[in-house]
């Protein structure tokens, strides 16, 4: 690898390096506590909602830097309705889940309608949604907490409560072998897919990356997967909610890169006028982005009430900020058209690690907010300035 390639490699993967450095920093400062199996497991469970919401938010941001401020309130509202249905109205769990999904998606579609077809600025529509659904959550719950502790099938399904891990089918030791096995399979699958893609590309004479770099990548990623699964195996195994997160990430990663509609999100954000002239219905693209956001907010709502085994009118506050922050830290452009699902996940993990690390260090909660704010601003400054060719100030 020559110097340019190294610089290009670092530039392309900046956030991954930042993540490694930050992780190393916290391992050092917490005396390795952040590496403990329980904390690794917590990193997933605590941040599951961020992964889900950030994925949906990415689609909105891709369409031109548009954000959805209402997701926190929608998460709360969906949770409130679900808990009320299950506990107070004795509606079966399966039916409650369906109703919750329909409500979330309908809210997304409602907001999407104004944004896409009437062209009310998304900021206004979703700001209104944020107020409306926060208020309605209070109304639905009468301002009270509804506990869903005894709805164990729901709680287990969405990864809450004490028993929120995939059971070990192999043995009864201290190490969860199922989890370790799943990790090994995932690593093997990753290597197989990578190798076969590379072979196909070579056969067609397409450009492939340097062989050494390729091997390094395979080794590094598989090692991370295996170590990660080993850590989880040491602590009760795979959290159920990780399955949900993986499904969302894989499905949306695939949609954004491999389907027509996925590429349309990039096109609209890249140049809306040109997209229109290319015969694409841009209204539908906006509508879809916000409808989908509502759908994922419903999922995040279920994950949230399951983890906390209750619904409260205050749940979901600032969730929109976590999601938006993860997108921008993960390399999404504030002007739209740029950003990937894996990038956003790296951003969300980085935010999660900073949260967890600072909590373990006993940093004051208010200072944590300060740090998160600074990280977000720095990430976006970095993105904007590097795109301008390294010039900090705009010429006036």
């Amino acid at each position: 690898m020559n110097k340019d390639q190294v610089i290009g490699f670092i530039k392309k993967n900046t956030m991954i390096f930042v993540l490694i450095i930050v992780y190393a920093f916290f391992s050092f400062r917490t005396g390795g506590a952040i590496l403990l199996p329980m904390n690794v497991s917590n990193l997933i469970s605590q941040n599951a909602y961020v992964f889900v919401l950030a994925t949906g938010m990415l689609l909105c941001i891709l369409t031109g830097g548009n954000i959805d401020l209402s997701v926190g309130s929608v998460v709360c509202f969906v949770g409130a309705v679900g808990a009320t249905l299950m506990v107070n109205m004795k509606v079966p769990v399966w039916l409650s889940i369906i109703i919750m999904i329909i409500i979330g998606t309908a809210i997304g579609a409602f907001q999407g309608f104004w944004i896409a077809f009437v062209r009310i600025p998304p900021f206004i529509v979703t700001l209104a949604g944020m107020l409306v659904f926060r208020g309605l959550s209070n109304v639905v719950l009468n301002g009270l907490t509804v506990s869903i502790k005894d709805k164990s099938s729901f709680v287990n399904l969405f990864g809450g409560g004490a028993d929120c891990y995939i059971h070990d089918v192999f043995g009864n030791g201290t190490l969860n072998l199922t989890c370790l096995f799943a990790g090994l399979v995932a690593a093997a699958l990753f290597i197989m897919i990578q190798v076969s893609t590379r072979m196909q590309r070579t056969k067609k004479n397409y450009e492939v990356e340097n062989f050494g770099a390729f091997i390094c990548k395979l080794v590094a990623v598989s090692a991370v997967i295996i170590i990660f699964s080993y850590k989880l195996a040491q602590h009760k195994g795979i959290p159920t909610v990780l399955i949900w997160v993986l499904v969302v990430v894989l499905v949306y990663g695939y949609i954004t890169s491999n389907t027509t509609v996925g590429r349309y999100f990039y096109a609209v954000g890249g140049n809306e006028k040109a997209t229109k002239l290319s015969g694409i219905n841009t209204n539908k693209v906006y509508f879809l982005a916000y409808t989908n956001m509502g759908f994922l907010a419903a999922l995040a709502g279920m994950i949230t009430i399951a983890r906390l085994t209750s619904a409260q009118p205050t749940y979901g506050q600032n969730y929109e900020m976590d999601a938006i922050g993860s997108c921008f830290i993960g390399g999404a452009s504030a002007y739209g058209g740029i950003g990937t699902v894996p990038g956003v996940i790296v951003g969300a993990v980085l935010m999660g690690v900073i949260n967890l690390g600072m909590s373990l260090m006993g940093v004051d909660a208010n200072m944590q907010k300060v740090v998160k704010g600074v990280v977000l601003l720095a990430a976006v400054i970095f993105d904007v300035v590097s795109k301008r060719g390294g010039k900090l100030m705009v010429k006036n």
Partner: protein
Amino acid sequence: MASEYKLELRGVSKSFPGVKALDNVQLAIRPGTVHALMGENGAGKSTLMKCLFGIYKMDAGEIFIDGQKVVISNPDEAMKMGIAMVHQELQPVPARSVGENMYLGRFPVKKIGPIQVIDHKAMYEQTEKWLNEVDMHFDPKAMLSTLSIGQMQSVEIAKAVSHDAKVIIFDEPTSSLSDNEVEALFKIMENLRKKGVAMIYISHKMDEIKRIADDITVMRDGTYVGTWPAAEMSIDDIIAKMVGRELTNIYPPKDREFGDVIMEVEGLSSIHKRSFQDVSFKLRKGEILGFGGLVGAQRTELMEGIFGIRNLSKGEIKIHGHKVEIKNSRDAMKAGIGMITEDRRARGIFGCLSIKDNVGVSVYNKFLKAGFVLDHASINKVVDESIDKLRIKTPSKQEHIANLSGGNQQKVIISRWLANDPDILIMDEPTRGIDIGAKHEIYEIMTELAKQGKAIIMISSEMPELLGMSDRVVVMCNGKKTGEIDNEAEMTQEKVMSYATMF
């Protein structure tokens, strides 16, 4: 030393990357006269005015005011020296009052104790005074957005007068005015002439020039042609001076066979009165149909009307003899039409996306596996073929389009439309902002497409390109079709120019 001239420009040259926009141009204006500055699109009139006004820095040349040499490095300095410009595209703040617009950036202030505040009373009194000066009587507190374009223009003129301007530049001031408003403008100019103000008047409207101008300076391709008293020049003389260049043939030969009529446009009219009205034409397979006219002739708008992105009030489009309803760009594409836009940067490319995405975006729907998954292998094949066929110079198809030169970007856009296999390709200024080598390649691509039987509509504001590439030429002026030239012998610059100025 006193001079006979109020303002004089000598030996002005200005180059932009790849083009020499002005080459040793001169201009001399006597006080109390209207001096018409004439030339085709791209002759360098606006560039010259921007150099005078300090918006562009000239590479060489001198400016004299009252015989004194001056240096003008920005619009602010120009205004302080008594030069004012009434822009072609007015740039007012519509949501603020007339007075605020007139005094924007130099609000009169008064002191209340230690605090400086805007003196609204003084501002509106002054505004009223200046408006009266140009014989305009309306409320200085009125919102600018409530005025007509002509009234907004008088505000601009009043603003120029309030600067105590001795030289006022009018850049196509009548292009969006009604007849009454033009009369009012001429009256104001008459007054200014009596006050000894020197005026530069840029316009394509020959009858106006004959009426108002004292002197005429003609420019062509960035060079100075000459200055004459307006009374001595007939309209034909002026046109001859404007277009009098030697045509060198750098275009591929026109040895094409035409097929049947593929598209008929009949009486197409925009819902906007000032846009295209009642335009009809026919397009045959395998021909390149040129659309000529001045900037603002509504050619782009007409094409956008055909492509379904502008609303029509009447008229119909027939393709292969059948009437088609085109409500949006999707309908147009289904009808076999493709359109390469004039403003490549704003409406053509996806700057932050790769070449592959830029080509693929309009055909994703055609390359699917299992109904919804993109077939990357087939898309890659199409993109690779395009890069190969149109000789797009790029390291790979993953390269961001923003990193390519203008010519290569244009080829990517052409590829996008060819991937859709249209029968009719509308190309709006296909070689704008492209260097000469890439222009040739675009011309060859166009000729090749025509030979394959595609019908091409080309809008071009460059006279040699229009005449060199087109099999037939339709000329528009002010939204109307004013002429059609279908035999090679009559395809002359003079003919096109005279149709293009039939206001």
